[in-house]
């Protein structure tokens, strides 16, 4: 039986299953948190009972971290070049020798309680993109539970912009549908199906010719995004076996956002840039594009979980028995950086957003379960993907804590005997020095960050630009507080079955 026809193909959590499957899935939900906590607790216990071993382990982690930083910097640098190149290319010319007029773009913009201005900016950016608008359909996907005002915004936008696109649809996702979780996944799946029934089928547009771009409502596509996407679609060996991933920039409000928010946003961009050079490690994230045909085959995005953006990739990956991958576009789309009326609120929002992103750990039990069940996926692929994904979540949640917080632990807990050793004296100094060298990589980060900034608004002084450079010294703080801790928070919740609901990042504009 094809894996997509199994009862567990769209499992959201262990309680969706029965019997042994349920026990197995639950155990796999516990696994990531268990591994991370075991690592941290072992580090504490080793510091007390075997401080020398703990010190060796921390030194190894320091060296590993430094080399990993250097290794990833090479990827970052290459991707930086590639994005700049892709932004300079005339994609229209690239496509001129190809037949691409049949390619139809379906853009889904889900929204909840965002302001008219936020929705309108995204629609306007779509209008400014270079692609025949008659070959574009825009679906504004609103939630019924957001209330009348949200629906009115959809109608107002429709009134203003509907005629400028080939098709325009406002869908209202009904509230409280049994088996669904309130969130983006259920909303855009509903929107995609509505678009099929109301646009694609009546207009007889072949599903294979439709590329769906599932954006966030604040996603602003750069001018040639759809041309670039079309080119990649047409040049792919099999465009139905790949998803397409742009690089998320957070430039919409970058000049208004505080430093801490810019660093968190910039770090997310850099991570995605590095992953773009390591496509075998890439899953779709946030705004992404995929053929309608593929989506239709697997019944669109999952409606019963939070991380639908990456889960759709894994749905397709396991449905195609591992014969599915991500094509990195190395072309940006821009979104909002976190910004709230107060700094404290902004920080709380960053934390919640990071926790929602790291809640992607809910894919681990899904992937591992599928790997156990679907023997058609080559064994080596299963082993490699499982390791890469597990290591990713494990290192995210534990490494910064061990390096920045627990690096001193053997000195504190190791006892008098250990404290007399040269090793005990050298450990904190060595950790500090290695981290300083690793921080040199931040110079590259700040150069890249500045190179992609939009023009400085007149009301922002020259000092604002300086702060775009200096902000990177916040990295040791953000990597722990907005990286490892929300990561550990998410894993712990999953471990104890305290499942996270969908939290919509508020889009505030100054």
């Amino acid at each position, binding site marked *: 039986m094809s894996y997509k026809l199994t009862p567990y193909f769209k499992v959201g959590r262990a309680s969706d299953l029965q019997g042994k499957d349920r026990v197995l899935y639950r155990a796999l939900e516990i696994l990531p948190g268990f591994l991370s906590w075991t690592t941290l607790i072992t580090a504490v216990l080793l510091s007390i009972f075997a401080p020398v071993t703990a010190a060796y382990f921390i*030194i190894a982690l320091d060296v590993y971290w430094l080399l*990993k930083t250097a290794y990833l910097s*090479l990827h970052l640098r290459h991707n930086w070049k590639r994005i700049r*190149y892709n932004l300079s290319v005339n994609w229209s010319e690239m496509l001129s020798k190809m037949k691409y007029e049949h390619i139809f773009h379906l853009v889904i913009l889900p929204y909840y309680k965002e302001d008219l201005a936020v929705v309108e900016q995204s629609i306007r950016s779509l209008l400014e993109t270079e692609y025949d608008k008659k070959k574009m359909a825009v679906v504004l996907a609103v939630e019924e539970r957001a209330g009348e005002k949200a629906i009115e915004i959809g109608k107002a936008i429709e009134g203003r912009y509907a005629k400028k696109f080939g098709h325009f649809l406002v869908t209202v996702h009904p509230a409280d549908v049994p088996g669904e979780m309130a969130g983006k996944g259920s909303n855009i799946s509903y929107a995609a199906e509505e678009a099929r029934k109301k646009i694609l089928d009546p207009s007889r547009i072949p599903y294979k010719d439709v590329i769906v771009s599932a954006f966030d409502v604040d996603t602003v596509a750069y001018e040639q995004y759809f041309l670039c996407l079309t080119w990649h679609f047409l040049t792919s060996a099999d465009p139905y076996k790949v998803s397409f991933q742009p690089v998320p920039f957070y430039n919409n409000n970058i000049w208004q956002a505080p430093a801490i928010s810019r660093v968190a946003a910039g770090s997310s961009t850099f991570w995605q840039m590095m992953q*773009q050079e390591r496509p075998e490690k890439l899953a779709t994230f946030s705004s992404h594009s995929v053929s309608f045909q593929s989506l239709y085959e697997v019944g669109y995005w999952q409606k019963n979980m939070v991380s639908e953006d990456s889960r759709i990739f894994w749905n397709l990956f396991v449905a195609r028995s591992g014969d599915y991958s991500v094509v*990195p576009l*190395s072309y940006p789309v821009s979104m909002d950086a976190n910004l709230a009326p107060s700094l404290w609120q902004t920080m709380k929002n960053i934390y919640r957003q990071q926790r929602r992103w790291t809640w992607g750990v809910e894919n681990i039990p899904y992937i591992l379960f599928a790997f156990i069940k679907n023997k058609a996926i080559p064994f080596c692929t299963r082993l490699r993907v499982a390791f890469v994904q597990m290591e990713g979540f494990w290192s995210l949640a534990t490494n910064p804590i061990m390096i920045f917080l627990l690096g001193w632990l053997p000195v504190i807990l190791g006892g008098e005997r250990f404290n007399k050793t040269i*090793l*005990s*004296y050298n450990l904190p100094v060595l950790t500090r020095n290695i981290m300083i060298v690793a921080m040199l990589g931040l110079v590259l980060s700040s150069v890249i960050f500045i190179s992609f900034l939009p023009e400085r608004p007149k009301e922002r002084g020259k000092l604002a630009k300086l702060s775009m450079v200096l902000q990177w010294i916040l990295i040791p703080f953000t990597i722990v507080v907005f990286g490892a801790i929300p990561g550990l928070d998410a894993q712990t919740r999953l471990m104890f079955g305290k499942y996270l609901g969908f939290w919509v990042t508020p889009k505030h504009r100054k």
Partner: protein
Amino acid sequence: MKPLSRTKRRIYLIFFALVFVVSLPLVILYARGYRLTLSEALKFGRTGGFYIAATQSGAEIYIDSKLVKKTGIFQKNVLVQNLKPGSYDIKVVKDGFHTWTKTLSVFSETVTEAHPFMLPENPELVEVPPYLSDSGMPTSTPPKASLINTLRNPEYIQAAALFSVASSKETALKSGTSTEILGIQRKLSVENRDGRLYIEWLGKSADIPSYFCQYEQCKSSITLAGLSAVKVFDFYPGRGDLLIIAVSDGIYVAEMDDRSAQNIQPLFPGKNLDFRIDGDVIFIKQAKRMYFLSL
């Protein structure tokens, strides 16, 4: 433009993996105190070091007559590494202060701790006069006999009260033992046996202060040589390893550390001196005169 090629990425990965495999043992050996020596043949030699915690800023720390550090306001401590195992002379010098010297051994992979102390050569003693003048200022001149009770300096009374209380040694004597026990601080007991001080560690052996040990060999008691006929003693404020001691010709501060000759520095010369400690203040009494020394 193409993504980073697989070959290039593989080369990067192999390169960094090799750097990791080669550098990690070297970094660990370095952290443990191993150093590459060029003398004789090129080989790894095990080294050790000193951690010297000076209390003064502006002090110069010498090891075997070589200046290794001039202490600052924020950095009074120094870690000296890369020393071959052996014996070294440490000297801490500052103008206007007594010099502290010590001969200590360095052991491989180990840090030998030293906690110097330096008393000012001319400490500022302030007399506490027994009376108050008519205007309320402290004075040594006694007022008229009729006012003698109303014009007593309250600070003097307070200080005198410290001396009126029988010290613990007297209590011990009164209870009939032949040993004077001052008290126990930080699990250290100090006993005065016929004018000589004996220091004993009462805590867990794992927590024993470093000056009881030479490498991993620790003893449990130390004798304070150099001062005999001890009359009064107490712990120096803020330091568990220093004693302040009154003998027949003055008050001294001595360290317990006997890994080499114990440093003893004079605090206040004179005969018939007694002292008491109240917080950070040392009160000194000579006949009926009272002084305090703020540290």
